[in-house]
């Protein structure tokens, strides 16, 4: 298409590239995707280390945690705050949207790069800067920010309350920079998909994962404005004495909560949708099936996106908002269960009549659906205002959102990573190690969070470094559950070594054994070489049909790639 002229100019210097221009200042979407992927994974290791430290403290209060030391209350707050912040903003966002979006969009829509490659590079550079600022904030005087990832003022607004004055400001700066990075990325994603598709690729021929990343980018761009404004206001409250959120000077702390959750709830769908798209593509490939009711799935997603802007105050039922408002937000929150349930039904219906091959990526994709269902149904308890009076700020909430975010950020990432690894590196991963890693992650995951549902139902509240001060919660049977959850966490973290080992040996293999299309899949990325060279396709492909033509009647092969003429 004519739009591909601009990327051409950015790729003028094919061939001999220096280390710096190839790996550091690259404008190639695949390299930027890898930069996002590995930065995200490095941040996941930091976030994972944090959860190891504070779970050890919860299981064995007062212990000297190996590789860390004693966990003081101040450090505990910093650890839980930064665990949440990192896992959502520096792991789920960069990996699911930025890494998969950058890698997949040009390949799957059949063009040679993003339409704004330099903006793309700039986006990653700002993201990297934001990560550096965040990590630097751990080491400043007073330590990293310890006011929870929701950063409610007045605690977050005044150093005398939080005792982490500089840490809180750096935290805000890092988050704001990260938003800038994803705004730039989002503009790129939406523009590229709308303008640079292969000739013949109509709206309903776009693979679902691409649609999901586009819708997620739109949701992000539409929701982040208020929080960005909020972040600027909070920064000024912290540093130059304004009083936007200070009730003693006419401000209102609840205002922050509205700004935060107006972004915060759509944000859940921003990370959920790419993971749903990844699972949909993988399930179709390995079930050899059409995605059941593609258009319904798509319109349901649009509906979810719109509804997701109307539910934010269910995070604030007991926060001091007018109690009558809770009724409105209960209605919208319960309504949003309908499109999400519909999407789960579509996954199940897609399996019907298929020819299912349980490869490692397929196991991850199926696990995403099975586990996300638990996150979905437990959300109903929290969306119902009357029940939330009890569950709010307990471990039930914590277990609920880990049953959504873990399938999204971890299971979804592993699904996508193992599925597209052959395309990224030209080599297959080891299936046996992949399955060991899968079961070694999924089983402990459930063992971590099911006890936490029980503890939440028993009234255990969040962000407490030791329950010894609460006689009703310090009972030995509850402590046993905490120890059990922590043990399961250690097992799960241990099994991640299998993943890294598998990546390493697969990447080091000499033979390029993947071929162009190892999974016999339909979408355009499988037309390119593995790994795709700079510029992706020798000649840009033409698209003739939808992405999920598996088992098409009257064809010998059970798949029908999008680029093959009829």
């Amino acid at each position, binding site marked *: 298409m004519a739009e591909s002229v601009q990327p051409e100019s950015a790729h003028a210097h094919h061939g001999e590239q220096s280390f710096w221009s190839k790996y550091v200042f690259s404008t190639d979407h695949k390299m930027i995707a890898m930069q996002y992927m590995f930065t995200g994974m490095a941040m996941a290791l930091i976030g994972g280390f944090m959860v190891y430290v504070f779970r050890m403290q919860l299981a064995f209060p007062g212990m000297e945690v190996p590789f860390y030391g004693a966990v003081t*209350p101040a450090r505990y*707050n910093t650890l839980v705050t930064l665990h949440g912040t990192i896992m959502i903003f520096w792991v789920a966002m960069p990996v699911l949207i930025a890494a998969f979006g950058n890698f997949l969009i040009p390949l799957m829509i059949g063009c040679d790069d993003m339409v704004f490659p330099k903006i793309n590079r700039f986006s990653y550079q700002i993201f990297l800067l934001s990560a550096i600022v965040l990590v630097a904030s751990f080491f400043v005087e007073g330590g990293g920010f310890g006011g929870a990832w929701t950063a409610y003022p*007045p*605690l977050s607004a005044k150093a005398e*309350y*939080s005792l982490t004055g500089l840490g809180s400001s750096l935290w805000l700066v890092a988050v704001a920079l990260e938003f800038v990075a994803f705004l730039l990325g989002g503009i790129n994603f939406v523009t590229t998909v709308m303008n640079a598709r292969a000739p013949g690729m109509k709206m309903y021929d776009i693979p679902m994962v691409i649609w999901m990343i586009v819708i997620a980018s739109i949701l992000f761009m539409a929701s982040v404005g208020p929080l960005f404004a909020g972040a600027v206001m909070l920064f000024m409250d912290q540093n130059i004495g304004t009083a936007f959120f200070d*009730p*003693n000077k006419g401000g209102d*702390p*609840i205002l922050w909560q509205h700004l935060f959750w107006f972004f915060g709830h759509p944000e859940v769908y921003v990370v959920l949708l790419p993971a749903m798209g990844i699972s949909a593509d993988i399930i179709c490939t390995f*079930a050899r*099936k*059409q995605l*059941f*009711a593609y258009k*319904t799935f798509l319109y349901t997603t649009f509906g979810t996106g719109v509804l997701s802007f109307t539910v934010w105050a269910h995070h604030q*039922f*007991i926060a001091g908002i007018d*109690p009558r408002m809770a009724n409105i937000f209960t*209605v919208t929150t*319960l309504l949003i*269960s*309908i499109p999400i*349930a*519909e999407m*789960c039904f*579509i*996954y*199940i*219906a897609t*399996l*019907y*009549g298929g*020819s*299912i*091959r349980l490869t490692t990526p397929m196991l991850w994709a199926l696990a995403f659906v099975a586990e996300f*269902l638990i996150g979905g*149904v437990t959300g*109903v*308890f929290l969306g*119902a*205002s*009357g*029940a939330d*009076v*009890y569950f*709010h*700020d307990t471990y039930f909430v914590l277990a609920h959102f880990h049953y959504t975010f873990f399938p999204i950020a971890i299971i979804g990432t592993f699904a996508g990573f193992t599925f597209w690894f052959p395309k990224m590196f030209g080599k297959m991963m080891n299936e046996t190690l992949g399955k060991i890693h899968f079961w070694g992650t999924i089983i402990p995951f459930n063992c971590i969070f099911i006890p936490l549902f*029980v503890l939440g*139902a*028993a*009234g255990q*509240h*969040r*962000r*407490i470094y030791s329950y010894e001060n*609460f006689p*009703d919660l310090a009972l030995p049977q509850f402590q046993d559950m905490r120890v059990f959850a922590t043990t399961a966490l250690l097992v799960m973290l241990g099994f991640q070594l299998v993943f890294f080992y598998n990546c390493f040996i697969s990447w080091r293999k000499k033979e390029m054994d993947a071929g162009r299309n190892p999974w016999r899949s339909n979408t355009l990325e499988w037309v390119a070489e593995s790994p795709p060279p700079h510029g992706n396709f020798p000649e840009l492909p033409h698209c003739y049909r939808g992405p999920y033509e*598996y088992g098409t009647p009257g064809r010998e092969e*059970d798949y029908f790639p999008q680029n093959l003429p009829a």
Partner: protein
Amino acid sequence: MPQLYLEALSTYASDIDNLILLIAALVIPWFILCELIFFYFIFRFREKDGVPTEYITGENKRHKRWITYPHLLVLVCDLFILVGAVQVWYDVKQRLPDPYETVRIVGQQWAWTFVHPGPDHVLDTADDITTVDEFHVEVGKIYHFKLESRDVLHSFSVPVFRLKQDAIPGRIITGWFEATGVGEYDIQCAEICGIGHGLMAARIFIESPENHAAWIAEKSPFQLAAAATIPIVED
């Protein structure tokens, strides 16, 4: 489900528990059914030699009703949950039954202060009894509380009452409860409030009328003084 681990000791605690049960009764069958069908399909449609896959786009009505009808049923379930949720919410948070007494609860980094109205049952009089991290109430009486905060957000949470309400600096939030059984239980701060958040524990003492009267008599030096002054005024 909370009642498995924790007593239900307020008039609305069992309503909240029942609402939770109602939701569980509606969503758990859905969950089990979905997972059963999901796993059945995975095993039933495993790859077999010579068995081609079925070509189903899901776009025609005959196929699509398999997802349309279930999602209409989900909507019906949502309506039941909505009615239950709003009823319970109205009872706990929107309506305010007439109180026997009003108490003041103040959160600050990192303690709860309770101001009891004392023998005269009127708050802000000389005979008020102020306690820290100890809250004494009488069983079977409707209390209003005026919830305040001196610094950051806190959340007043009494798990056995199933009651939780954030405290916000600059505002006075009124709520209510009526205890239905005696005993001594945890009060939590459920909103992160700084490094002492984990220390912000208090205890609620729900007492029989006799014990509560005895506690007031013991704690209120003003009671004797007040009793002594009354005849003087009459003279």
